[in-house]
């Protein structure tokens, strides 16, 4: 009698995915992976974005059998991946401006459609991703992003969210969390760091456009990230993936803590991990072991002003309240029904 044996994926590659059927294994575990973002790029040690992008783009390449074009916004990813005269990209790649990756993606998709029609095909076999950081997506790129969603252009947009304008020296973006220190939200005065009551939730805004697929992911669950990319590439129309990527330099965290911090962001409830289709939440990653926000905040120097003597326990409490709200809203503990669906 045979019995399926479950092997639990851990956050490391110690087992190397060998115990999973091939199609469920991480793209990165395959010797045939594309290495779309090849080694030799100039990212910082421990860069969450480099990790996320490598996984995401290779997963998209596998899903499309290598028939993929990428548009990239200005930002860390673009800068560290293309230090003149080198490029670490192994797929066709276009960097235009800071705020237009989504529109450029729309343009690429439009040209591909016409080329396909000219060749007598219903649609092109070549797919498009557009990618950028939180700055280029939630702020300066917001108009183009909404336009792409509204037209339902056939592009997967991936936002690598490290909660600030990192490449220019760690300034605040609309993705910067409350109380975080940045160069434009210094830890001084009555409300040190980024102010509460600001910022925007782009995944929810993407859902409001009722596009085919919206998902969030982190670099703590890399296989989940890949699966979401593959799911997205199995669909057509506008799709949005928001990936939480810690930035050791900008956050003042240890470069070896990147994946741990991403996991803590999920486990505190500060970063809800979910999927949605056509404006409705379809799946939520529940928190396995709930953790108070302090555990997440402490290892990051950008929150150092909240600790110490006397510190700001009141602000920590407000951050905790925000996490509690997310847990309630998205049903992150699994037992309650969520508001978000």
């Amino acid at each position, binding site marked *: 009698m045979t019995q399926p044996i479950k092997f639990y994926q851990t956050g490391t590659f110690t087992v190397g995915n060998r115990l999973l059927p091939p199609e469920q294994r991480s793209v990165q575990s395959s010797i045939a992976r594309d290495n779309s973002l090849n080694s030799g790029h100039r990212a910082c040690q421990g860069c969450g974005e480099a990790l996320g992008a490598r996984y995401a783009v290779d997963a998209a390449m596998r899903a499309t059998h290598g028939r993929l*074009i990428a548009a990239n916004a200005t930002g860390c990813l673009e800068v560290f991946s*293309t230090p003149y*005269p080198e490029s670490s990209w192994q797929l066709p790649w276009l960097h235009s401006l800071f705020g237009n990756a989504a*529109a450029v993606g*729309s*343009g*690429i998709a439009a*040209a591909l459609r016409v080329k396909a029609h000219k060749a007598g095909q219903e649609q092109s076999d070549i797919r498009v991703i557009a990618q950028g950081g939180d700055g280029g997506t939630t702020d300066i790129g917001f*108009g183009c992003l909404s336009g792409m969603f509204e037209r339902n252009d056939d592009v997967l947009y991936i936002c690598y969210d490290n909660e600030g304008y990192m490449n220019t020296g760690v300034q605040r973006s609309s993705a910067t969390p409350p109380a975080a220190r940045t160069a434009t939200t210094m830890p001084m005065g009555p409300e040190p760091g980024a102010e509460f009551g600001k910022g925007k939730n782009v995944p929810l805004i993407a859902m409001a456009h009722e596009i085919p697929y919206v998902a969030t992911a982190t670099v703590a669950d890399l296989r989940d990230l890949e699966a979401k990319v593959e799911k997205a590439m199995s669909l057509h129309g506008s799709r949005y993936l928001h990936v939480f990527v810690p930035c050791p330099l900008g956050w003042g965290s240890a470069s070896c803590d990147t994946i741990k911090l991403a996991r803590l962001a999920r486990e505190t409830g500060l970063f809800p991990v979910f999927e949605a289709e056509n404006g409705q939440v379809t799946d939520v990653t529940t928190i396995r072991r709930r953790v108070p926000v302090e555990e997440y905040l402490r290892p990051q120097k950008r929150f150092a002003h909240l600790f110490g003597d006397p510190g700001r326990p009141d602000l920590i409490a407000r951050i905790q309240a925000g996490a509690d709200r997310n847990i309630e809203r998205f049903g992150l503990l699994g037992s309650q029904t969520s508001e978000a669906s």
Partner: protein
Amino acid sequence: MKKQIEGSRAVAESVALCRPDVICAYPISPQTHIVEGLGELVKSGELSPCEFLNVESEFAAMSVAIGSSATGGRTYTATASQGLLFMVEAVYNASGLGLPIVMTVANRAIGAPINIWNDHSDSMSQRDCGWIQLFAESNQEALDLHIQAFRLAEEMSMPVMVCMDGFILTHAYEQVDMPDQAQVDAFLPPYEPRQVLDPDDPVSIGAMVGPEAFMEVRYLAHAKQLMALARIPEIAAEFEQIFGRNAGGLVRPHRVEDAETIVVALGSVIGTLQEVVDTMRDQGEKIGLLSIRAFRPFPLAEVRAALGGAKRVVVLEKSFSVGLGGVVSTDVRLALSGIQLHGYTVVAGLGGRAITQDSLLRVLGEAIEDKLEALTFLDLDWDIVNRHLAREAETRRSGPIAENLLRDLGVVGAKVY
């Protein structure tokens, strides 16, 4: 085939004949009829296969164009005035990347104060960005230039701006000779990109370039525009062979050979100027006219050759550089370096103010007698200007300028402009 249609319609039909793959535009007066016309042609299936994207801003329009062109699609957009400014970052990006996008600029004034009427401030504001700039004298030339523009852009791998006067040309019904598809196909081959996003041959486009190579990359853009100086007349000549008429080229001189006074201008005002010059010739004046058709690259040699023998040059332009004076006249002066002659700048038609034959006869008459100031604003109402300056000298809280002037003018609607 001869047709009596609106200028915008003529451009829409000629762009359609060029078989664009992607059209992306955001509406702005006075370009709206062009993109509406093209939208209709795509929707009806007459222009197919073609993707028509209704974008959410001009910045998005040029960005979509960049993505499309980089993927090997023949791409077209159109804008004017505020819209052109809104997309400026992408305009520079397109020329910096060497993408052969063709864009119509339906020349319109830039605010504040907001003004929807014609002048050249919009395209002039982008004269340094690396796009080729061609100016149309008439609707026939506008439609002809778009066909030449795609050919020129794709050959040179650089974007081309076709400038046509907003309202004056875009909204005028005139007779045009619309080519047929066979003629355009004979003139304009399919787009063969120099660089293209292709999974079978991946490249990275848009890398950062530091001090070690930036100057060289930028110089190459300049070098290519200088090469365009030779190609533009050649393409115009090839065009004439297939379509049977003269359109485009660098400059068009009219009766300059023995002229003592030569007027220089761009765009639709040339028509009125030509009539005035002919009238003055009938009166015995040795006067000529030079129409600049390619403004970028600026045809220094051709302008010098046409104007060098005159005693005086009057540059009549619908643009000016605040705090300095003429824009076009500055470039013309450069062409005339070292040649002694009287140079006059006449700024006219800003914000759509009509340029009449009477005013032209008067101001050119003054020029011929060398009684003109170096810089003249044609038909300026000095009374109103001085009244406002006095008002400001008197009160700190003098209020918005535009509103004050309009009040001084009384009921604007009563005037027939």
